[in-house]
Structure formats: structure tokens, C-alpha cells
């Protein structure tokens, strides 16, 4: 059986996998990181989004072996070791951006990528468009959009440029 060596949430791991093992299966079933969810089988829902070398990817549409030698961050790896939440997690809580919590890990990972990749700021429409790859059935997205806008200044350490708002 092939082996894959990669870094997950800062820890180096080496795991036996099949060729067909998906990254999400590696995370959930081999490493017990069940925070990453599977909500569909057509790469649409985004519940499985993780960061691969700092960018968001759908872990259900990637083979575990494709992640060899790379660094994966999951929802479990976001908070500081002392439990302090990432600003995005904090803003999701503050703005009631989650209900059942199932889409939440993927939504948070996707949102962090969105904010990081827009240092120039994000308008409401850009946030809404940027969440195209994540489905939520509970919140109607209203509070998710608010939470992401609120996380932007915390992540960039400055006020959102007025033009973006």
C-alpha cells in the first residue's frame, strides 16, 4: 500500500493510503480530524474545504497522494494552542454565522482564504460571490457575509478601505 507523508496542522504525518483515498478520507478516517465534513459528492457544497499550502481547496476532490510533501490546515488547526479562536472563527460566533454547524468548517476555511486574498478590501457582493463554492442551508448567508466583513479588519489589522464597503 502506498504511503503519503505530509504536514497536517503543523505536524508531520506518514500514512498508508490507497491510490483512490481522497484527502478528506485521509483527514477524517486516518487522522481522526472529523471537523472537515463531506456534504456532497459533486464538489459543490464546500463543507470539505481545507487549506493546502495556504490556499483553499476541496479535500473531497483531491487524492491524498496529491498532497504528498505539502502542508494542510484544517478547521482543527486554526485556533491557537491556548484555544484562542482565529478572528474568523470569533466573528462567526459574534455574528451568529452558523446554526447546525455542518457547513461551518468549510465556510470558515473558505472565508479566511477570501479575506487573505483581498488585501484591497471586500464589498458585500464580492463576499457573496467569493462564497460561491460553499453551500449553507441554515443561515441564508446573511450573517456569514456580516461575519466575514467584520473579520477583514481584524485579519488585516486596519479598517476596511471605504471604497470596498
Amino acid at each position: 500500500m502506498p504511503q503519503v507523508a505530509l504536514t497536517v496542522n503543523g505536524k508531520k504525518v506518514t500514512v498508508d493510503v490507497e491510490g483512490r483515498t481522497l484527502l478528506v478520507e485521509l483527514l477524517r478516517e486516518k487522522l481522526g480530524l472529523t471537523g472537515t465534513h463531506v456534504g456532497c459528492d459533486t464538489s459543490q457544497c464546500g463543507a470539505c474545504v481545507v487549506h493546502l499550502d495556504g490556499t483553499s481547496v476541496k479535500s473531497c476532490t483531491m487524492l491524498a497522494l496529491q498532497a504528498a510533501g505539502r502542508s494542510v490546515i484544517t478547521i482543527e488547526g486554526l485556533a491557537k494552542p491556548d484555544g484562542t479562536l482565529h478572528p474568523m472563527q470569533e466573528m462567526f460566533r459574534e455574528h451568529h454565522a452558523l446554526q447546525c454547524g455542518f457547513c461551518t468548517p468549510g465556510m470558515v476555511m473558505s472565508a479566511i482564504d477570501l479575506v487573505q486574498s483581498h488585501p484591497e478590501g471586500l464589498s458585500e457582493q464580492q463576499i457573496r460571490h467569493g462564497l460561491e463554492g460553499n453551500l449553507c442551508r441554515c443561515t441564508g448567508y446573511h450573517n456569514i457575509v456580516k461575519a466575514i466583513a467584520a473579520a477583514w479588519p481584524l485579519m488585516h489589522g486596519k479598517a476596511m478601505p471605504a471604497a470596498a464597503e
Partner: protein
Amino acid sequence: MYDFTYQKPASVADAVKLLGADPEAKALAGGMTLIPVLKQRLNKPSALVDLAGAGLAGISVAGGTVRIGAMTTHATVANSADVKKAIPALAKLAGGIGDKEVRHRGTIGGSLANDDPTADYPAAVLALGATVETNKRTINADDFFQGMFTTALESGELITAISFPVPEKAAYMKFPNPASRYALVGVFVAKGPAGVRVTVTGAGQNGVFRHRAMEAALQKSFSQAAIADIATPADGLNSDIHAGAEYRAHLVGVMARRAVAAAG
């Protein structure tokens, strides 16, 4: 998924060798289409040959040509300052493929080799008169697309890069399928060295096609008015729960006019 052997060669030559040695092996680019297909068990390759290590990613601009390596992701194309400057329509098209997670993994070579009739890139490649480079030869865009999911690629032939001549102006307008967000109708309009080209993706039963009537009209006058009265026949267009052929035909006109307006 059925199980398979995973291989990651370090060069195109090695990849070709692996694929040549096993007729049941398949090349893996970004995997954004292939992996979902495998998950549905619609395909049973013996091996996947991952091209990620074959040195095929990268963008260069020289002599009025934008050359994009086959394994360059949609996100890289969308965010490339060079592409944005040379062919902003191409960057914009890449930035509208799938969602951002798909764009982080999906590649131009994978998209073209797959030739999904609802994919965006074929419209750009055909409209811009691009050249598809493979490990064996170069193929003109006009010869490359041969109906849906069918290209001129032979077995053991891999796309290595795509070269786009920089057009005078160009724009792409997409009407997405409301559910899948693939192109229900996408129209790419370009005015370049080869004249005016108008290509349509998503709508045709045989994949991407050139809209000759609009090309002729725009050749005379590159304006919305020039194509305002050109009707697109519904014959040969796709029909599904989201859009019948008549509606698609109408949308081709709307998207084309908007693309002309955006191209300026």
C-alpha cells in the same frame, strides 16, 4: 472509486512513457473533473499519472503571445499581472470558472483535454485563435475541438502549453447554469490578428462553435448594433430543465452583445 495506481513522474517524457506503457492509465491534471467522474465510478483507470511534477506550470508573455503552461491553475491565470495586461478577457474568464477552490486546483490543460461542452476555456482558445502545444506537435484551435469531450489529442499525447496571440480587444460573457454554475451559454468575442471571432460554449450539442454570422457582421462593424438583428438558430443547441434551445439561442445573442460592449 475503483482503486488505481498513482504515479507522479518528474517530466513530460516520463509521463508519456507511463501512459504509453499502460493503455488503461489516465493523465491527472487538476482533477476537478476527473476525480468527480471517478467518484461516480464512471471510469476505471488502472493508473493515474499526475502531471503536477512534470514542470508544466507557468506563464510567459513575449512577442505578442501569451503562453500558458498546461498545468497552470485557473487562479494563477486569473491573478497573473501579465495576463491581465495582455489579455484581460482571458484573466476574467479564468476568474469565473467554477468557484475559487476549483480555480485553485483546476488547470487550463486539464480543461481543454477534457473539452466539456459547458467549459469556459474552449471559447477563449477558439476565439483567440490559440495554438495548443503538445509533446508531439502544435494544433490550431480550429482543429483541436472535435465535438463534445472530443479533441484532436491522440492517445499518449499530452497538452504542454497553450499560446494565445494577444488580440486588439476581447471579452467573454457567461450565463451560468443556476445549479452547477457551468456555462449555460458563454460567448467569447475577439478582434485580433485573425480578424473577428465569436465563439459559443455551453450551448451547442457538439461543444464549442464559431458564430460565423456574427463574425461577419462584426468584421464590418465591431458594435452591438451590428449583431443586434442576428438571430441564432436553435437547431443543434442543448435543451435541459434550465434552458430550452430557444432560450439558449436568445442568450447567445444577449451574451454576444454584452461581450462586444465589454470589449469596447
